[in-house]
């Protein structure tokens, strides 16, 4: 089962949270409900056979992507694994391009070439969207290396699931991060299950997964992800360490996914967790509800105003599905585009010799 970590109080008073204006706080809410609405709509259309492949949904974990990414500045970068829709929307990608990608359309963020697991927006410092578990962990390290090499004060936030911590590349990345003093923040979004295998059945650990970082002399923390105030306050420490000391951090953020690993087990057909457990998380640890309570308690918004935001998010999601439906599929010729930079850019190198071997 998922790690039960109680949220710590008083994070609302952290300096980074004191900087939030009422509008900022409403925007955080809007971002979370936009992610949720997008995912609900995408599930509906997945079930309606409008898209292929897998659909790994993020519902229940929204506060992690929204809270951490809300801290980032112009030289901070993000990379994640295959459960990537939430992070994509949080960095500012549009619902239209994200939904169209799921539908395999030319208007998708990857022109229909990547699909659900492979969203990218380098113009927003978002480097994917990676399908192989932990395959992105050395890339996140490389982003940090690039920042340091160029003399920029920034951080690379590299997200991974609790199932990724047992891959060799993650450990190699931790060693290199500490050895080279790189400004990378590894964020383990621990939702308790690597696919259908619980943390207890997949990982050997002493107190938690992030503690493994101590073996590499890397600072680490474990905390609850359900309250954005806490996510922001504690992630900010890691970002400042990256910015000011060029040192890595491993954060383990306890969270919970409401739906299946993918839609294949969305009705909990795997039997690896109980209905009661899921319902308890939904009732007691819903990050959207937690944040909503903050907003109401602080008098920032009324129930009616929040409902309006929910409705707007749902409308936006519905419109994105319409946009996706009405968009064209990519042309067959596009199969050979975006393979080689030199070919796409019609350079001398791209015209020299044969690059494709279809006949």
């Amino acid at each position, binding site marked *: 089962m998922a790690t039960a970590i109680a949220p710590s109080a008083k994070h609302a008073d952290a300096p980074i949270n004191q900087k939030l204006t009422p509008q900022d706080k409403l925007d955080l809410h809007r971002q979370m409900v936009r992610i949720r609405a997008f995912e609900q709509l995408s599930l509906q259309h997945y079930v309606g056979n409008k898209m292929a492949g897998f659909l790994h949904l993020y519902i229940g974990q929204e506060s992690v992507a929204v809270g951490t990414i809300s801290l980032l500045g112009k030289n901070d*970068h993000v*990379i994640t694994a295959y459960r990537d829709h939430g992070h994509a929307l949080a960095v500012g990608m549009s619902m239209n391009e994200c939904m169209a990608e799921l539908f395999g359309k030319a208007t*998708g*963020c*990857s*022109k*229909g*070439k*990547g699909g659900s697991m*492979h969203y*990218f*927006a*380098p*113009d927003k410092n978002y*480097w*994917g*969207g*990676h*399908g*192989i578990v932990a*395959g992105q*962990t*050395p*890339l*996140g*390290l*490389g*982003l*940090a*290396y*690039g*920042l340091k*090499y*160029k003399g920029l004060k920034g951080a690379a936030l590299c997200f991974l699931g609790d199932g990724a911590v047992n891959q*060799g*590349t993650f450990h*190699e*990345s931790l*060693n*290199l991060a500490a*050895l080279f003093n790189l400004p990378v923040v590894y964020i383990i979004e621990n939702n308790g299950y690597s696919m259908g295998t619980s943390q207890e059945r997949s990982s050997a650990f002493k107190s938690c997964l992030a503690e493994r970082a101590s073996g590499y002399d890397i600072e680490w923390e474990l905390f609850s992800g359900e309250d954005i105030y806490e996510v922001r306050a504690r992630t900010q420490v890691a970002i400042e360490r990256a910015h000011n000391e060029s040192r890595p951090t491993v954060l383990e953020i306890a969270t919970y996914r409401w739906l299946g690993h993918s839609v294949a087990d969305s009705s909990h057909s795997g039997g690896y967790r109980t209905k009661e457990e899921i319902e308890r998380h939904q009732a007691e640890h819903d990050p959207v509800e937690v944040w909503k309570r903050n907003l109401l308690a602080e008098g920032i918004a009324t129930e009616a105003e929040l409902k309006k935001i929910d409705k707007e998010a749902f409308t936006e999601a519905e419109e994105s599905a319409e946009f996706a439906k009405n968009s064209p599929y990519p042309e067959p010729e596009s199969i050979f*585009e*975006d*393979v*080689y*930079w*030199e070919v*796409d*850019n019609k350079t*001398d*190198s791209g015209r*020299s*010799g*044969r*690059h*494709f*071997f279809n*006949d």
Partner: protein
Amino acid sequence: MPRQITYRDALREAFDEELARDPMVVLMGEEVAQYNGAYKVTKGLWEKWGDKRIVDTPISEAGFIGMGIGASMLGVRPVMELMFWSFYTVAWDQIINNAGMVRYMSGGKINCPIVIRGPANGGTGVGATHSHTPENIMASFPGMKVVCPSNARDAKGLMKTAIRDNDPVMFMESTALYGELWEVPSNDEVPGGELIIPFGVADIKRAGTDLTLIAHGRAVITCLKAAEMLEAEHGIKAEVIDLRTIRPLDEDTILESVAKTHRAIYVEEGKPFCGVGAQIAYTIQNKVFDELDAPVQRVCSLDAPAIYSPPLEKIQLPYPEVIVAKALSIC
């Protein structure tokens, strides 16, 4: 007298010149800096360029190759050494899925200007794990470029092109060639002041009329020896084509030669199954079938894992006499 330098020194000149030209170029790998390179290809560069540009990594290929790929997405131009190309297997996911496919999966938003380089050859008594020749495997992935220079001049000119290329380049050298001397012009002897050899342009290393020997990497040298024997002992004039780059591929030079000689043999140090020669033989029969007077032949490494025992390892790889015998069977 024309300048002669080794294959190793030619590569080092290319690195040195590109390090000077572009501050984003960084050399990384196991023992490349303070140790001067396991095969001394990077000798003296750390002393000259320092810690930032020449970087020793731990033995952690998946980690550091992946790190280089990530850095290349941000515009750094890493030249990553695999001490042996044989170690590509431990960095496989990073090389194939990340360097090779991130451009495509991002719809062209990202590119990886990275060079992954090192020796890819057998014949040195190090057994099967250290004797892989994965050029055919790498070339089977669209998105990859694969370069196999057979001599010092090409090694320098192609390496400079590789470092400037904006796609991932798999650059395969040979420990058996590192110490060999070749004529390599100095910069003041070449037009434009530097030696640059484009990708996708094969080189006719020896002209001939009776038979086309096609090869890449060290097998080109073996072909040249076989061509000498064929002419001296049998009066057969073999043309030797050095592909230089396998992907992109210069098919025109091959097809024009076969149209002239009507016979072709592909020679490579890789294994026969799905080898580079399999692709070339297909292309020849598909494009110039009517020009052929005999089936296209192949000479490859004998089809078993690389054997250790020195005398047997020697005959497992292509050698001039086998090429001569194969030539006589079709001439």
